[in-house]
């Protein structure tokens, strides 16, 4: 079972939830506590979202607060910009991350810039939620993992939970954040497992990763749907006497520089696992941070296990595209034996 440190620490009343339930719970908590929050997107109202993330919310909070929009990503993200200017806090759902592209201009030229161009007079407290990633046999363009496009855009934070606890906590932190946050939801983990999630309001801090397994030989950096995979590989490695320090980065912009340095300086050996394309992927950014912080500590080249430089293929080949435990294990061994 993968979970964040916080889960162990928390003593609040809690319930056992899947990630998708935790997200719904987070959205409900938000709508209850702040009249200025609204939810917008395609099929989020009566239908409750194609993954049921907003199930029941329109019934409870009404059509003014849980808004079904026309099929118009640029239009409704732009509309949300206007709403944010006027003091609302829109939480926008993009049905799948692969359909965020039509809104790219709005995000790159307005969502991310309004604060700077107005020197802080206006700001855009918007959250963009998007299911993402491969592995659930979706059609074309439904399995994108392009977080790196957004971590490169100045003015937006990017987070990605790997479990239900972090999902709710990061979501509420994103809503509270006065600046835009892209909230990535690994589809593969929506219903996979349950963890205890506090019933009330709590936050998981944006910008902080978490060590999900303590180890000394090799550091593994991963997030989202890669965490269960990496945990499996690192269990496997224990049999060979290799102990892995597994870091769930959770926050993709900004990355947790201190935690990255801390682990690398302990192990000197690193494997990075992500499902986005290799070139220009976040793996390279992490290597760059290691170069900056921990050059003298490295005992082996950093290994990357990533998606390839190819469009995510139709689902018969998606497992070939995705990092596998075998690939992760091979990389760990390579880093360990260098």
């Amino acid at each position, binding site marked *: 079972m993968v979970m964040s440190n916080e889960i162990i620490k928390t003593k609040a009343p809690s319930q056992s939830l899947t990630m998708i339930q935790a997200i719904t719970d987070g959205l409900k908590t938000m709508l209850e506590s702040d009249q200025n929050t609204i939810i917008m997107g395609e099929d989020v109202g009566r239908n409750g979202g194609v993954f049921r993330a907003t199930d029941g919310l329109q019934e409870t909070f009404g059509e003014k607060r849980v808004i079904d929009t026309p099929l*118009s990503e*640029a*239009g409704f993200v732009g509309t949300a910009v206007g709403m944010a200017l006027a003091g609302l806090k829109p939480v926008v759902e993009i049905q799948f991350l692969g359909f965020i592209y039509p809104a790219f201009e709005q995000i790159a030229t307005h969502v991310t810039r309004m604060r700077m161009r107005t020197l802080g007079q206006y700001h855009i407290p918007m959250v963009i939620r998007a299911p993402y990633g491969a592995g659930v046999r979706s059609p074309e363009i439904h399995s994108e993992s392009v977080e790196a496009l957004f971590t490169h855009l100045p003015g937006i934070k990017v987070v990605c939970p790997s479990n239900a606890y972090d999902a709710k906590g990061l979501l509420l932190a994103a809503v509270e954040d006065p600046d835009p946050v892209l909230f990535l939801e690994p589809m593969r983990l929506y219903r996979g497992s349950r963890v205890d999630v506090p019933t009330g309001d709590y936050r998981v801090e944006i910008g902080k990763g978490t060590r999900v397994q303590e180890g000394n030989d090799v550091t593994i950096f991963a997030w989202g749907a890669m965490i269960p995979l990496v945990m499996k590989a690192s269990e496997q490695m224990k049999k060979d006497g290799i102990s892995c320090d597994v870091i769930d980065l959770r926050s993709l912009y900004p990355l947790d520089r201190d935690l990255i340095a801390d682990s690398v300086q302990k192990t000197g050996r690193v494997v990075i696992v992500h499902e986005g394309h290799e070139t220009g992927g976040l793996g390279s950014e992490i290597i760059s941070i290691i170069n900056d912080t921990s050059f003298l500590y490295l005992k082996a080249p950093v290994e990357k296990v990533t998606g390839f430089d190819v469009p995510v293929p139709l689902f018969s080949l998606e497992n070939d595209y995705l990092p596998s435990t075998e690939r992760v294990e091979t990389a760990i061994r390579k880093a360990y034996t260098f």
Partner: protein
Amino acid sequence: MENYPLYQIIDENGEWVNKSYEKELNEEKVKEFYYHMLRIRTYDQKGVALQRQGRIGTYVPFPGHEGAQVGSALALSENDWMFPTYRDHGASLTFGADLDRMFLHWNGRIEGCLPSREKRIMPASIPIATHLPHATGAAIAEVYKGTDNAAIAYFGDGATSEGDFHEGLNIASVFKAPVVFFNQNNGYAISLPIEKQMNSETIAQKAVAYGIPGVRVDGMDVFAVHYAVKEALERARKGEGPTLIEAVVIRFGAHTTADDPSKYRDQEEINRQKEAKDPLLRLKKHMQFRGFWSEEWVENIQSDIRTEIESAVVKMESAPTANTDDMFDHVFSEPTWTISRQKEQLGLMGGNR
């Protein structure tokens, strides 16, 4: 609405509303329509069944759309371009897509993405409305090359809200591109009813924005669709530019096999409408009163179609496993070193399975 009356050739009882095409619509021709409608409906039923049995992935049913898809597809000429969505495999099949490729596609196989290696039927466009400018471009290129080929783009009512719908139509109108924008208005974009998608009473009237003809047709009347598309294609080939056609249909089933329509609409009511308005039933009634109907003929074609479909399913299921190389080898004409290296590394590990 008054400006855009619903164009019909036969009514819900299969009776003539407009007899202009009576001659042309002889027994052979009418049977051809019925044959194709029955063929794609049978295929559709197979698709749903295969999905339920876990033999393919998510499937997109189209019952209710058969008249629109067959009527339009049969209006095209051999070398015209077709730009379908995920719901228009009925039109693709009618225009000449390979059945086994279509099934392969639903099975997540790249080999099935392109519906035909001969006909110019493009892969179903998944990002809504993005293919409308492609149709415009292909049409402009045909003019450039001096042919009289045209293009048709299929899209739904929801698609009209996307910028690419607007940009595709605007550019086509400016360059008088020989393209038909064929909308199937089934009243829903997944769960969103059309009243929340747009404030205009019709989709046809959106043509005014581009100074092009807008036509509103009963999409469950295969004849009406056929002639509306045919006339639009004729205008296109004559250099008179694009036409926007709104074919009003009902989506009898779910948005996809992953969708539960009872969440957002009264499915009972839809089922009742199906009874009354099914495009196949309507054509059957028409054929009956014109004396074109024969149970024997139907049984014959039904059995041929079944055989054809079963053999396509066999072909799909006996296809060799998906080839990992396909993922690497067709990103560029020659793989870059990045891709070659990634392919090699995966290969060294014996692939991913």
